[in-house]
């Protein structure tokens, strides 16, 4: 009965592996990141494949930001202030982030936000 009331604690499951059933939503693709390439070029293959999903995720965050600050000022601040911050980030992360923004078409400030989100989230 505990699995029907929060926190829905189940008996310890067995035989879930290999992954299957309703808790398994799919396998994960493999990519190579070549560290011998210039930082700006390292993520091109990944981003070319995942561009649409990245744009969708960023859009969802922007919708949340708009819900919080309807005036759009929050997003404006991200798009104006965070690009200024990218050069303060250590190498090679700054150049890799620039490469991702260029390959995905997502504004640089928003890619920076995604990459420092762990620290920002505490706000």
């Amino acid at each position, binding site marked *: 009965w505990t*699995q*029907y009331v*929060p*926190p*829905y*604690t*189940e*008996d*310890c*499951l*067995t*035989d*879930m*592996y290999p*992954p299957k059933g*309703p*808790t*398994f*939503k*799919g*396998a*994960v693709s*493999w*990519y*190579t*990141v*070549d*560290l*011998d390439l210039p930082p700006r070029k390292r*993520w091109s293959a*990944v*981003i070319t*494949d*995942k561009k649409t*999903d*990245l744009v*969708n*995720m960023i859009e*969802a*965050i922007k919708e*949340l930001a708009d819900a919080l600050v309807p005036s759009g000022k929050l997003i404006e601040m991200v798009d104006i202030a965070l690009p200024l*911050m990218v050069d*303060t*980030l*250590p190498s090679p*992360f700054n150049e*890799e*982030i620039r490469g*991702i923004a260029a390959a*995905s078409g997502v504004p640089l400030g928003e*890619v920076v936000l*995604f*990459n*420092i989100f*762990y*620290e*920002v*989230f*505490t*706000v």
Partner: protein
Amino acid sequence: CTSIVAEDKKGNLIHGRNLDFGLFMGWDVKNKSWIISEKLKPLVVNLDFKRNNQTVFKSTNFAGYVGMLTGIKPNIFTLTMNERFSLDGGYIGILEWILGQRDGMWMSFLTRSVLENATSYEEAKSRLAQTKLLAPAYFILGGNSTGQGCIITRSRLLSIDILEIDLKLGRWYVLETNYDHWKDPFFLDDRRTPGMKCMNQTTQTNISVKTMYDVLSTKPVLNKLTTYTTLMQVSQGKLESYIRDCPNPCMPW
């Protein structure tokens, strides 16, 4: 998040983790799911970082994110990171950064640098414990020898505690969610007790990649925030990951 490092009877170390993210970032009433968590799932990728065509480390990541939250340096160590809540949090680090005090490191840039450059479990542990951070965190580190498994509890400036596997004390695994291990977890978010119950029920004799996946699939260790599960075996240099779902009834966190 839930991260586990366990040592089996033969001394093999197995490292597993659920990556949970998106709390309070928009609830989709129709689908009963968190909006950002669902948007992150298609971005999950496995990455093989190479130099001179040789694997340096491997990682499970979100496309577009250059830092590391989950990774393995084959035959040397495995590393995951869980969020740690503290009033002295990341926003203070960001403020210091903006004001020009830049001697701290961004959390996921540190984990990336350790995976890329550290050459041993001890070196990784030392760097994760001693490098100044912008935000607090838990680092869960597994090595390649018996006893090499630990949870490093970090504030922004200090290494507050390091809990290691200790077979003599019967501690054959370490398990971390998002609360200091010497304190009770928040009563509305106790994933530690069910997680440890399942690990103890599995026993050291039966722990394996398979049974660790079972533990990470049991609610509420698996919850609506869980985007992926990764399983790593350091001695085989193997990393595998799976995108997850949590059918109702399921805890939102």
